[in-house]
């Protein structure tokens, strides 16, 4: 459902942010995308969603090339950006309605979905309030609801848990599982390895713009016996702990 083939991205004239990254995500899969800050996670996601055009390589969503068939590709995914601060003068409901209009969600389907999602994320009582008055977490919840309103087969979520309260984070994880169980797929970036460990079928670890691991968490742990996921991750990204730091 998501196919990244040799994706490479250069910012400006000389800053290679992503270098030859490839992966495939099939139906029913939840894939976690991990890596330190500045590793290139968001850049890969931006190439998958059509914000950036790869210098080389190809991104295909649900069978559609994002560069050559952008409208079909974009109709196939839900995207939650890492920054929920957009069109903040609108009320939550106005923003959701706008996204639903763009995706041409029929009116009779729209209302029950808004009701269901807003109740699951406990934001129903704030939908008629301008988003500028929302907390970061509330904006993030709204972005998730708006992204999912058209029920696309592919979810691409950039740091979706950031700012969410435990209840909302639980609901989102639950929804991700339900979505994958229906034969769809989810790609999400995260810094929280425990989330990846519990939720993902596969993880992709990226560092300095290059993919350094792709596989299941179990495979990764079996390659590094006796170590927890955090230690393995730090080893993979060649992190040297400072002297005297807690083990």
């Amino acid at each position: 459902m998501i196919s990244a083939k040799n994706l490479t991205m250069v910012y400006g004239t000389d800053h290679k942010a992503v270098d030859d990254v490839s992966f495939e995500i099939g139906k029913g899969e939840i894939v976690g995308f991990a890596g330190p800050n500045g590793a290139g996670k968001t850049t890969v996601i931006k190439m998958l969603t059509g914000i950036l055009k790869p210098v080389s390589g190809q991104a295909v969503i649900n069978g559609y090339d994002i560069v050559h068939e952008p409208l079909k590709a974009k109709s196939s995914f839900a995207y939650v950006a890492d920054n929920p601060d957009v069109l903040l003068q609108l009320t939550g409901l106005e923003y959701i309605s706008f996204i639903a209009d763009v995706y041409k969600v029929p009116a009779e389907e729209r209302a029950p979905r808004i009701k269901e999602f807003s109740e699951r994320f406990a934001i129903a009582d704030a939908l008629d309030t301008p988003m500028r008055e929302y907390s970061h977490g509330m904006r993030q919840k709204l972005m998730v609801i708006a992204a999912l309103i058209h029920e696309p087969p592919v979810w691409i979520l950039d740091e979706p848990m950031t700012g969410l309260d435990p209840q909302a984070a639980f609901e989102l994880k639950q929804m991700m599982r339900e979505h994958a169980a229906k034969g769809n797929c989810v790609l999400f970036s995260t810094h929280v390895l425990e989330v990846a460990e519990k939720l993902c079928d596969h993880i992709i670890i990226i560092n300095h713009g290059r993919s350094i691991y792709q596989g299941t968490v179990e495979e990764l742990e079996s390659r590094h016996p006796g170590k927890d996921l955090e230690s393995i991750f730090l080893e993979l990204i060649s992190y040297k702990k400072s002297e005297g730091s807690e083990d």
Partner: protein
Amino acid sequence: MSNVKYLFGVYNKNFEMPLPKKGFKATAYTALAIIAVTCIVIPCCLIVGFITDIMSTAMMMAGSKTAALMSEIHIMSVFSLVFGLFVIFNVLFFSSDREHLVTLPITPTELLAAKFRHTYIAESIMEFLVLLAMFAGYFIACVKNYESLSSFGIISVLMAVIATFVTPLLPLVYCAIISMLLMALLRNVKNVKIFSHVSDFFLLLFIGLFLLSFRDSGGVTVTNYIDSLLANNNLFFRICNILFFTVPILGKAMEAESIIYAILYLLANVIPVAVMLLIGKYLYQEGLYTAASLGSKHKQADANKLNIKLTSPFSTCFKKEIKVLLRTKAYSNNCVYINLLWPIGVVLFFVLSRKNENVLRFIELYNNPSYPRAALIMMLAVIAISFIASALNTLASTAFSREGAHVDLIKYIPVSYSTQLYAKVLTAVVFTYPGLLLSLIAAQYFLSFNALAFLIYALTAFLAMTICIVTGLSMDSAAPFTVWSDEYSALRGNLNSFFNMAVSMLVAFLLCALIFLLFELTTASLTTVTILVLIILIVASVLSVIFGRKIIIDNMKELY
């Protein structure tokens, strides 16, 4: 095209600056809105209408019915083109909503159409009113000169109504096309600075053309401008006729009451829009990709080699303000470099008017102690310019809005509110006052006033600036506009700037009127009036600083 409708609706809802809804602040903002309309909108429209009437009358007497009106529309189109370039460029490629909207199933043409339509309306509201005033002035001149209402027909009236709303279209279409073409060129260079140079180039080009059109005519005056139009040797007008080709068609439609030219005018406006959308179809998406991929290799700093000096909280806050202003193109252009407009304007005025009889007479009278009225006019000019210059740069009236979403910083850093406030005040002063002083130095060169007069003018300018800065800071701290999509929006959509300008104009007008009446209606000498002016300004400044400081700090405590 329903996506265009949805996007347009969303932009409209997102554009408005939230204002206080109840309490004293709400009442104050309503009063400010009334002041703004009465002190800026109505006077501007009346002046434009009056100038159009005078120029049109002169041109009609010389046998050209619409030339004056057309030349004014050309000047307005040039302003739209030059000042619209950066706005359109930022709206199309660098607004913060870009990365959200491009992931939606919307074609680049739809996104372009919606952004353009919204910007066109948002940017042109004042222009619509000024155009309306121009056409009113033109029709008044028609009635006066031809002594009949039948001097213009239904086609003229219809065209005036249409042109009021359509005239700003072509310059902004040019802005969009230039933006997309430049962005396509930037694809390989990836250097946005080129764009700012292009914008500066256009500004200088049109100023040069305008000034060239007065060559050998004895100075920049309305009379000389009309003479050059009559002689049909006005370079500026001739080039604008080609560039803004819709304007001469409008002129012919109105002059000849021609329905064919009227239809041609409509077509001439539709075709550029179609061309823009066609170019957008092929270039806009690529431009968006380029905008998203700008950046440079991260630079490493060796902490051991850093020349770190401890500075006071005040100095740190001040440096932060300065760096933000100078490193943000929107702020450096509109808040910092705009202050050079005044000294350059003074020099240009005196150089270009060196053969103008009225100006030469004024200089002569100014240096004649028997005619103190000339010195009084100079004093009034200093007061008016100081108020307007201090408000126009918006340094004070956007001081808190510029903090944007991170305005909370003011609350949680361990620096007192007064220290942060003084840093903002000093920032406004260091960019405003040198411009005023340079203007005075330039004026001194041409008018040869003595050191005491210079000091009095300098003190007057400082006091007027102080009042204006405190007023601006008070307004912006009361209701800062912190939710904006890009830095240009922080300035454009900020009603505090508009209101500060209105209040400054009102105060300047009242003060100048009071001084003038005092001088004319009493036996008070120029010295007495000058002392009174200084006392009034000193008292007003001290009071504004004392009360303003308290109001601003109270407002800062309530910021969120």
